[in-house]
């Protein structure tokens, strides 16, 4: 069998610096979905359990559970978690819509991603206004 002459493959440039590639909007929403989820796992769940436990202990405990919100740092932590929760839920709803074949095409996918980003930020701003 005659060997087929193949040109020697040139090493192709690999360019996978994720920070230098301009990510499409759905990719940004997706990675924020992961970051917000990890944040809720590591910080959100323990704080939620602490809050419910402390607030149910007594009337004083109820006040103590809200006490961190009188400091800037406490407000900032709650605001970050509020954003994480809101973004995660909205991005999740988008996933459910995609499962139902809604918004799968490129233009609707981009549009829905933009809606998720913007609405999450707007709702977080409302939380911020109520906190301060």
């Amino acid at each position, binding site marked *: 069998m005659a060997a087929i002459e193949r040109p020697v493959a040139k090493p192709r440039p690999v360019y996978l610096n994720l920070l230098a590639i301009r990510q499409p909007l759905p990719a940004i929403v997706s990675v924020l979905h992961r970051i917000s*989820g*990890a944040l809720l*796992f590591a910080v959100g*769940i323990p704080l939620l*359990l602490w809050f*419910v*436990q402390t607030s*149910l202990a007594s*009337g004083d405990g109820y006040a103590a559970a809200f006490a961190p919100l009188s400091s800037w740092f406490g407000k900032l932590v709650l605001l970050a978690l509020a954003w994480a929760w809101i973004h995660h*839920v909205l991005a999740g709803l988008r996933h459910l819509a995609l499962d139902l074949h809604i918004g799968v095409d490129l233009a609707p996918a981009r549009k829905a991603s933009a809606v998720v980003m913007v609405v999450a930020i707007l709702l977080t701003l409302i939380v911020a206004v109520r906190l301060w």
Partner: protein
Amino acid sequence: MVGGPVDRLAVGAHYGARDWLAQRVTAIVMTLYTLLIALIVLWHGGLDYATWKAMFASAAFRVSSFLFMVSLLFHAWVGMRNILMDYAKPTSLRLALQIVVVCVLVAYAGWTAQVLWGGP
């Protein structure tokens, strides 16, 4: 680990469809619970200690809260495992981190039971 007769990693994903469904079912349970909380708070026109305490005095609310927390913890497991599968490449590191996540989730589950049924 590659090329053996059984080319399969203990910490790999070979159970995608089941987790895909579970992730969505738990998400819907959590969304419904969140809406329930929002409705209760709106119904009472805000929240105070007496209302809060009365909510958790109801067995039905405690069971709903437990269902929410179980959904949350399972959802967190699927999500954290997916993240680790993508970014923690060495199998030993991935296994170690997954064990940490499982231990944390079991601790959260114990804490949840304590909060819901171990109270004064």
